[in-house]
């Protein structure tokens, strides 16, 4: 039975009713569900298929079948069951999904009949009669759908030791609606070739899912950034130079994250060059030469203090005294340090041959010496550049079978103390042959800047140590920068 209001709808209230019905149906859409909205109009049947994507954003598709096409499907002179079947096929309603049926063709008997067939096929579906275009209402409902997943911005958070933690900050919570804004204080360093990426993610369990990325080459500095939710799936940032679409995926973005924040070169600073001076003469000369190269590069840096520490190998014969780590210079200027390095090269290797350990060095003693010196002279920032090859001695016998340090120094504990207590930044130049994994000790001693003898990038090394202003690119905005 058709009521008066259904037969002759008052335009606005019914359109509002449709908007509400559609909004309710869209809100009820789950991850795998589908909503079918079928409009029977004067020119034919239009079917809207609405689903949610992986981010919970409702997406709609639309098919329109004209009456004339429906007639051709079953023959002009045929009616009844065949025409009913053609209408239902055109509507293509998912029997397991939700549906909304809309009639927008007052007075059309053919449309009236088709609408009745659809109602009888899905008696559970809301059936509405409207004057306006259904497409406009569907689009509006999709654009104003509240978020079903929270949106976060990908940022980098510097830890106290200078390393960088990949993190997110919330932009919009669940149920946020278009027009919502969030303002954040962000800091940007120089980005890579694509600039600084403003990546918005949603979450699938504990895994971030990239929703959108926009980038721009921004001048390093602080920004008051406002994010505005334009519609589900679309966030616009303001307070920044214009951003443009960035085609990179999550893996490519993450790959550019440096292990630590490049230190800004400051007026003062302390570079400690620790050099392994045992082994083959040519190698020792090469190591000292590398140290000289680095120090020379920094000759125009005002206020830089340089220390030179030399270490050899332990003696494992009671009759031969174990040599001590030598602090050849401590907090001297660049020119003095260069002179000390010249002397070191002229002297050549120490602790060669028996009874000195042939395959390990006093690396752990060197670290302990630096730690002791810094405790008495805690000026910062400090960069420790170790130039060597051999592993340290462990504090006690272990699977490496390298004899323990006679003083039981523990290189791991000392490195941690240097990092945490004195904020030491570690760089290393290692004679490491490609192919094998880099030993753990050299990974740690080269955590900020690591170079091989054969491919020494002095500029990269000094910038990694925070001694020159050539910072490594930081691909995301930073948060909590002091």
């Amino acid at each position, binding site marked *: 039975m058709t009521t008066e209001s259904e037969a002759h709808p008052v335009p606005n209230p019914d359109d509002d009713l449709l908007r509400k019905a559609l909004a309710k149906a869209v809100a009820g859409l789950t991850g795998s569900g589908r909503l079918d909205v079928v409009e029977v109009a004067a020119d034919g049947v239009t079917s809207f298929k609405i689903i949610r994507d992986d981010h919970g954003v409702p997406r709609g598709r639309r098919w329109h079948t004209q009456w004339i096409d429906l007639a051709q499907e079953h023959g002009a002179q045929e009616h009844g069951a065949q025409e009913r079947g053609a209408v239902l096929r055109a509507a293509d309603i998912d029997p397991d999904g939700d549906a909304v049926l809309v009639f927008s063709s007052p007075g059309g008997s053919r449309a009236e009949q088709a609408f009745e067939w659809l109602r009888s096929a899905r008696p559970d579906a809301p059936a509405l009669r409207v004057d306006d275009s259904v497409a406009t209402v569907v689009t509006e409902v999709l654009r104003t759908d509240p978020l079903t997943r929270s949106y976060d911005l990908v940022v980098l958070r510097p830890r106290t030791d200078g390393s960088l933690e990949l993190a997110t900050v919330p932009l919009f919570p669940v149920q946020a609606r278009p027009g919502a804004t969030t303002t954040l204080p962000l800091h940007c360093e120089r980005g890579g070739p694509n600039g600084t990426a403003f990546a918005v993610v949603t979450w699938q369990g504990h895994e971030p899912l990239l929703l959108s990325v926009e980038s721009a080459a921004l001048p390093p500095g602080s920004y008051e950034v406002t994010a505005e939710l334009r519609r589900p799936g679309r966030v616009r940032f303001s307070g920044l130079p214009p951003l443009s679409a960035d085609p990179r995926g999550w893996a490519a973005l993450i790959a550019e994250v440096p292990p630590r924040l490049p230190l800004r070169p400051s007026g003062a600073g302390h570079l400690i060059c620790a050099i392994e001076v045992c082994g083959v003469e040519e190698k020792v000369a090469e190591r000292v030469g590398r140290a000289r190269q680095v120090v020379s590069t920094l000759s125009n840096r005002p206020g830089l203090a340089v220390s030179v520490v030399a270490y050899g190998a332990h003696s*494992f*014969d*009671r009759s031969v005294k174990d040599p001590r780590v030598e602090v050849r210079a401590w907090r001297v200027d660049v020119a003095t340090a260069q002179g000390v390095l010249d002397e070191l090269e002229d002297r050549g290797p120490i602790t060669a*041959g*028996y*009874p000195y*350990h*042939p*395959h390990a060095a006093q690396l752990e003693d060197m670290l302990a010496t630096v730690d002791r010196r810094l405790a008495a002279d805690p000026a910062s920032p400090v960069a420790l550049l170790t130039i060597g090859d051999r592993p340290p001695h462990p*504090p*006690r*016998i272990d*699977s490496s*079978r390298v*004899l*323990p340090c006679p003083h*039981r120094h523990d290189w791991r504990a000392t490195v941690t103390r240097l990092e945490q207590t004195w904020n030491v930044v570690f760089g290393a130049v290692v004679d490491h042959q490609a192919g094998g994994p880099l030993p753990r000790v050299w990974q740690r001693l080269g955590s900020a800047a690591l170079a091989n003898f054969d491919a020494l990038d002095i500029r990269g090394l000094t910038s990694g140590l925070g001694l020159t202003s050539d910072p490594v690119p930081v691909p995301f905005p930073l948060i909590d920068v002091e």
Partner: protein
Amino acid sequence: MAETPRHHIAMWGAPGSGKTTLLAALSVALNRRDDDWKIVGQNPESSAYLTDMTSALTSGKEFPEASTALETYQWALIGPGPTGLFRRQRTSTMIGLTMVDAPGGHFAPSKGRTGGAEERQEELMANLTQSRGIVFLFDPIREFEVGDAYDHLHGPLNRLAEKMLEADQFENGKLPHNIAVCITKFDDPRVLQTAQKQRLLSPDLDDKHQFPRVAVEDARELFRELSRVSATGSAEMVMNALDKFFHRDRIRFYVTSSIGFYLDQQTETFDWNDYLNLVPDEADKAALRIRGPVYPINVVEPMLWLGECLAKQGRSR
């Protein structure tokens, strides 16, 4: 006329199992003991060889070079004579000690041997048949890496059995020998840690250096445990072969170390943090030098046990 040993002990083991080092260590160990036992060469070549090997171990801090020529070196272990209420006092006890192998393993399977090798093998076999005490060296590290202890045991054992059967020397279906199985390289962390994990270490309260030790009654268990990690999986057959061919009460296991553990310079006691007595050699990464003084462990004990067994057997005949 010079006194000659009444009993003989033969040293047996795979090439590189440490026979030469054990011999040198035996000399050191006897000199560290506060008793009358000593080792003496029975001919000038054997005396010279013993001196050289011992010097290499103590002064040169190098592992003695194994003999490169096939020679049957002979020494005598000389100690105090047995005493007893009704026993006539002998002036001394003398046990012959023969090292009957040379590097390359004349005990190894005889595939591809040429040019007098058979003859040499017969000579070596004769030494084993004449001995009634055998020191069999089992190197657990070599077994872990190469796994050839069984290869070097079962062939010669069959030949020995064949010879003894021929001479009607079987006793109750088994060989008449006493055999001391020496598990070597106790100083290696892998061996020591295995013993520790298996709770087989027992302190020697009289040892001022507090070196860890595995008691004789627990040594068989350690042998079994170490056999499980054999590279070829054949080490477990070594114990079975020994049990089949020798009387169980004539087999004794010893956990030994020729160089012993490194001793802390200050405390003069064993230090669990730093006990490795080896330093890698600069020239050859695979080679090792001896780090500090050698304190052989369980090197004399197998010899004296065998000597005691042989002396008893001699008296009962």
